[in-house]
């Protein structure tokens, strides 16, 4: 393996893109346009949000709150005896919220009812909330408020909310990481696919194959080129996000770039894999919707995965962008290190290793199978 040959491929790919100004402009505009266009909220019916219910009062009244939460499709309620530190609990256990009803809730509630609005003592429910997906957070707030309303004759119930990450996270804040992943996935996959198919059609592939260049060098050359492009695209998304939408980034930008570039590597692998299935450029174009649609619809980018019909949800976990979204949101919104979001991190790593290994196998075959 020789560094200069990897760089030769990288330089060549970048030069080819440089000559194709339309693609170049597209690559820089796409992240900006996507960020602008999708800077609006989407909302499906959210269901199966995991919440923990801690009842420290244990009365008929609190029982009825639990029942009405359980009846609501939105929630997947787990009843717990006691939670020591709700914030720690959320981070560790993967729940979206902890709803805690403190002791004396019932007596305070009826006291308030009996004495009218004059008193300040009032039944209070503690809500500890993972805000990293604002749509889910809003749904939880509304669902809990509904459950409290259902109590009927009672006075107002106060819901005291603690946001896990300190600030209130807006939709747009959690949307930026998804846009980053989407743009990188599209550009890296589609352009790698097109470029390799074009090499096959034009015969330059054969020429590279009889040269001293190795498959690994060829793939790494592409990886380097698109890693660089992914980084620039992330900068564009962040620039528009911060400049126009004033997004808040709680985490480390450096980790975010690392994860985006990692995801780009997997996408290059995926593009290479797909190139094995296409002999001509028009065949390659057929694959584009296959990359785009699941990424947009199923990855939890526009609406949370909990808003996708239950039957389709397993498909979400076949879409690479699902893992990238989890990972990038954890890093950028929650301010975690990548390994503190194990599912997202592992998903992206598996994606990278699997596609790059398979790509290497596939390239060996396409080199030999012509005519």
């Amino acid at each position, binding site marked *: 393996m020789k560094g200069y040959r990897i760089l030769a491929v990288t330089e060549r790919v970048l030069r080819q893109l440089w000559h194709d100004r339309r693609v170049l402009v597209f690559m820089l505009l796409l992240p900006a346009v996507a960020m602008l266009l999708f800077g609006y909220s989407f909302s499906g019916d959210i269901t199966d949000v995991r919440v923990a219910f801690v009842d420290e009062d244990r009365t008929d009244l609190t029982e009825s709150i639990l029942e009405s939460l359980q009846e609501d499709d939105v929630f997947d309620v787990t009843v717990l005896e006691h939670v020591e530190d709700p914030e720690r609990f959320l981070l560790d256990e993967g729940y979206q919220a902890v709803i805690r009803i403190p002791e004396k809730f019932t007596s305070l509630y009826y006291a308030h009812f009996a004495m009218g609005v004059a008193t300040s003592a009032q039944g209070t429910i503690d809500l500890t909330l993972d805000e990293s997906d604002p749509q889910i957070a809003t749904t939880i707030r509304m669902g809990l408020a509904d459950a409290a309303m259902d109590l009927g004759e009672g006075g107002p119930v106060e819901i005291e909310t603690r946001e896990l990450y300190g600030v209130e996270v807006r939709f747009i804040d959690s949307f930026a990481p998804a846009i980053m992943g989407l743009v990188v996935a599209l550009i890296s996959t589609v352009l790698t696919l097109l470029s390799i198919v074009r090499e096959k059609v034009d015969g330059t592939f054969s020429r590279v194959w009889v040269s*001293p260049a190795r498959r690994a060098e060829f793939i790494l050359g592409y990886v380097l080129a698109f890693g660089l492009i992914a980084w620039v695209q992330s900068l564009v998304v962040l620039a528009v996000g911060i400049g126009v939408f004033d997004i808040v980034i709680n985490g480390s930008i450096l980790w975010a770039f690392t994860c985006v570039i990692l995801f780009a590597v997997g996408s290059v692998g995926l593009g290479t894999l797909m190139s094995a299935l296409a002999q001509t450029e028009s065949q390659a174009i057929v694959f584009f919707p296959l990359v785009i649609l699941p990424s947009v619809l199923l990855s939890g980018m526009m609406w949370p995965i909990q808003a996708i019909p239950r039957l389709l949800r397993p498909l979400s976990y076949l879409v690479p962008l699902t893992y990238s979204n989890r990972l990038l949101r954890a890093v950028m919104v929650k301010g975690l290190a990548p390994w503190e979001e194990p599912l997202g991190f592992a998903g992206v790593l598996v994606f990278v290793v699997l596609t790059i290994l398979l790509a290497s196998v596939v390239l060996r075959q396409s080199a030999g199978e012509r005519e």
Partner: protein
Amino acid sequence: MADRGPAFVAQSLTKRFGALRAVDGLSFAIELGEIYGLVGPSGAGKTTLIRMLCGLTEPTDGTARLLGAPMPAGRRTVEHRFGYMPQERAVYRDLTVAENLLFFGRIYGMSRSRIRERTRQLLDLMRLEGHADQRADRLSGGEKQRLSLACALLHEPDALLLDEPTIGLDPALRREFWDHFHELNERGRTILLSTHYLHEAEWCGRVGLMQRGRLIAEGTPDALRRDAARRSGRIGPEDAPDMEDVFLILTAAAVPSAGGVG
């Protein structure tokens, strides 16, 4: 450097694609310093034979050797020493002429300054001087083909495998290409090329006539002509057959045995 033995060898070389025998038990040996022309109609198996010799296609049976190395297993030992020009005008259409040469030079490990020097020489040789910064897809067919040949020559290989290098060129340009080939050959390069222009066989040192994956006749152009004349009963020099006649006469003679295997 100085290999003993032939530049290219095929021994009972066979490639099957499904039921089709693209190359069918073919044997030949091409010595260092030869210009050898594979002549035959398209579909005769010339491209497959060349691709097996440079390690791109794995033989179904038999062996292929390039500069002594078994192909494709041994291609790493000889990859710097041969140049291959595929039938497609295999250049990057969205790179300029100079950038194409830069890329191929770099993957052969040449320094940038050496590549610049070779680029100047080759553009001069191929009469592409003014086109260094022109994108390959803006070149004419002939220019693109000259660029493609330049890419194969860039790293100064000892042996050249050229697949239909003159296809689609006008007669004057074809002549010019052949002048290049002879010049390269005089400077010690071994050349194996394929063509379906029968009269180009005249310009080769040795010719192999290919039909249906087999070598039906082989020899110097003169020897082939004599052979054909003998078979067809022509004697006098005035009715010596041209290469087209030679091909027709020799293929007709080969038909019975070709039918036997099918």
